[in-house]
């Protein structure tokens, strides 16, 4: 399969989950990059973030047409998160790549439980 088609399929799947569940799509992109395109863990997470910035921008433009976006609340959770993201990326550089895979598996399991329970 051509590379661009693989990337398009990952983008489409991530976009659909992003729009449906209000997540950036990283939960879909990171495992696909690792398991399908044989990315290393750190590369998969870094590349996923670049994709997420674009996907979330699309999705928020569409959602704002429905009048659902609250800018003040987004800043309230988003500004502390920016500081957290700087710490999180620094922390990741100190972990072995397999630990990133295992942590990610744990994250997916937690999301699954949240989806079932909440």
């Amino acid at each position: 399969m051509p590379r661009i088609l693989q990337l398009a399929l990952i983008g489409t799947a991530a976009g659909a989950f992003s729009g449906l569940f209000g997540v950036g799509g990283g939960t879909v992109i990171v495992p696909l990059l690792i398991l399908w395109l044989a990315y290393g863990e750190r590369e998969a997470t870094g590349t996923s973030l670049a994709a997420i910035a674009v996907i979330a921008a699309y999705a928020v433009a569409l959602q704002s047409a429905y009048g659902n976006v609250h800018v003040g609340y987004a800043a309230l959770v988003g500004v502390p998160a920016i500081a957290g993201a700087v710490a999180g990326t620094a922390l990741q550089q100190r972990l072995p790549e397999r630990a990133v895979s295992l942590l990610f598996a744990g994250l997916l399991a937690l999301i699954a439980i949240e989806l079932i329970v909440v």
Partner: protein
Amino acid sequence: MAELAAALLGLAAGVVGGLLGVGGGILFVPALAIFLDQTQVEAEATSLLAIVPVAIVATWRQRGYGNVRLREGLAIGALSGLGVAVGVVAANELSQRALELAFAGLLLLVAARLAWHGLRTETGSERSSSSE
């Protein structure tokens, strides 16, 4: 008090986002829904706005560490439009329970594959000894 809790959960969302390459929506959505009384759809929409700057800053940091294939990442993002449109319309039009359960099942399968991938990387190639 609720605002403080939401902000702290936002901080945690950023750490998880930077650490694992996700936007943080997984924690933004409950923070907005539980502490700031947004409906599920409102929380998801607001979460998406919060994700944008977090993802940009985290990408910039990861690029500094040499971990971003920028062309491929941007290609994935640029080619997501159809999926996003379908997802947003569906989120506003459909009852979500069946979708949530289906997605949860899919995530559990992927989690198992990924855990297996991580364990196999660690130990070489074992067969069925690590089926937790």
